[in-house]
């Protein structure tokens, strides 16, 4: 996922060692958890066919996102994803909102991850309480990140490979290739389109969960040997992996579990494994689900705290949060500050609520990315600034992406309208706080330090 803003001195000392495979691992590693939990809300909201349609429509949206972010990220003078883009293209208020949305996107995702871990352990024995294990998982991962010992890229790669292999194991165990022996019963267990076109819209919104965060691959631009090749290639291969994995997940789960039970399931792939009746498959998916949740939560704690510290370092938040631990070099204050927020949401146990808030925050960022793309091309037309990658089909691409995002937001509001309104009110109140109480403290030079050296004053100043 996203990397923090790096100071120019740090940026110069970063070694360029990453290739497409690393970008792939970065992108897929944290996102893959979406296939183990949360995606099945598409079935609950729209039905079986709507879920599959939503998956493919949302994949097109993400291809567009990756293209746009790849073009803009390789030109930006510092890493930091859409937050950095908002800084240089839209100004401090938009940057504050984008940063805040990214923080809550990750914070809610990590809350969802630990809810699932607790529920998985409870599934082994109903007497095992969910709450202490939910809290313990979050505390241990926060402690690991506090100590500056986040999972290395290699470990993430291994976890990703293991988790993806588990999905393939489940697929093969269904004997789907043998009509006589197959366990898959798509006709009997799926429910088509029970809510019609509105169901498709609802499913589109939640299909975000299959890919949420893959756009973060562009953040590795600083560390790639050849960003122009590695970022788009790694991101597209990552998207393809997730699309194939998502389709297999849909196929297996929809063919093994009735739609009425699949929709509300907390761990759909594990439930599908249990439905095969094969112990080794159930164990594999239990392990895969736990590993995927832990890897995702670990990455989210790291990314959320880095994003919070970046906001603080750029003076959009009080600068107390940017302080690094003297020994571990972690953003320890940001980790401690965000921990109770994630804990509070995790302790509710309401997976659908935290997933909805995470998706809402992400969709708002994607919408702003489309705006930023138009602004970027207007401020810096082709030929005026060196680009390692050029997004195709402009101006159609951001328009199509925006339409899909708006459909997703519309779909979310059908059953979670109150949540969306609450989320919108939250960001509105945060913006008012920012304008009234924080804007006067912004240090413009520090805010755009790297960009001023490279480009001079941006045109919005």
């Amino acid at each position, binding site marked *: 996922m996203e990397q923090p803003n790096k100071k120019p001195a740090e940026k110069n000392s970063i070694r360029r060692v990453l290739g497409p495979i690393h970008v792939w691992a970065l992108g897929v590693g944290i996102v893959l958890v979406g296939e183990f939990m949360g995606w099945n809300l598409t079935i609950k909201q729209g039905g079986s066919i709507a879920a599959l349609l939503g998956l493919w429509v949302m994949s097109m949206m993400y291809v567009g996102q990756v293209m746009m972010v790849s073009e803009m990220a390789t030109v930006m003078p510092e890493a930091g994803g859409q937050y950095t883009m908002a800084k240089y293209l839209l100004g401090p208020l938009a940057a504050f909102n984008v940063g805040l949305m990214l923080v809550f996107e990750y914070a809610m995702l990590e809350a969802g991850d630990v809810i699932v871990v607790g529920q998985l352990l409870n599934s082994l024995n109903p007497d095992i309480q969910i709450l*202490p294990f939910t809290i313990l998982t979050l505390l241990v991962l926060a402690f690991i990140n506090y100590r500056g010992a986040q999972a290395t890229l290699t470990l993430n790669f291994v976890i990703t490979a293991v988790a993806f292999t588990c999905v393939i194991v489940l697929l093969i165990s269904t004997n789907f290739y043998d009509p006589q022996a197959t366990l898959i019963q798509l006709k009997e267990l799926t429910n088509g389109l029970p809510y019609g076109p509105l169901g498709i819209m609802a499913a589109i919104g939640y299909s975000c969960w299959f890919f949420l965060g893959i756009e973060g691959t562009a953040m590795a631009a600083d560390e790639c040997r050849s960003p122009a090749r590695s970022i788009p290639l790694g991101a597209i291969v990552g998207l393809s992996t997730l699309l194939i994995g998502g389709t297999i997940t849909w196929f297996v789960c929809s063919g093994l579990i009735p739609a009425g039970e699949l929709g509300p399931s907390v761990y759909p792939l594990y439930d599908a494994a249990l439905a095969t009746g094969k112990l080794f498959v159930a164990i594999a998916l239990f392990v895969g689900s736990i590993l995927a949740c832990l890897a995702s939560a670990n990455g989210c704690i790291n990314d959320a705290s880095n994003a919070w510290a970046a906001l603080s370092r750029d003076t959009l938040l009080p600068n107390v949060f940017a302080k690094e631990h003297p020994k571990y070099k972690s953003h320890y204050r940001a980790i401690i500050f965000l921990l109770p927020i994630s804990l509070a949401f995790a302790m509710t146990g309401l997976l659908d609520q935290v997933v909805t808030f995470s998706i809402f925050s992400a969709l708002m960022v994607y919408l702003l990315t489309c705006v930023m793309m138009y602004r970027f091309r207007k401020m810096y037309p082709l030929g005026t600034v060196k680009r390692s990658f050029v997004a195709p089909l402009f101006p159609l691409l951001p328009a199509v992406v925006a339409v899909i995002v708006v459909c997703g937001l519309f779909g979310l509001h059908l059953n979670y309208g109150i949540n969306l309104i609450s989320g919108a009110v939250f960001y509105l109140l945060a913006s008012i706080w920012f304008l009234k109480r924080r804007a006067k403290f912004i240090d413009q030079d520090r805010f755009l330090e790297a960009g001023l050296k490279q480009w001079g004053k941006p045109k919005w100043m």
Partner: protein
Amino acid sequence: MNIADICNITAWVLCVVVAFLLLRDFVRTEIHFLQEKKEQAEQAAEQEGSEDGTAE
């Protein structure tokens, strides 16, 4: 007491332990920074005092 109860109690105990470790290090780090700030302020005051003395 069955195995589930043991697991639950162990989990709660570990929650308290990890939370304690986190908060303890956080408080120690903040005290460290406060002391550092105090020392820097004292050094700055001493320097100012010696400069005034030299000027006179």
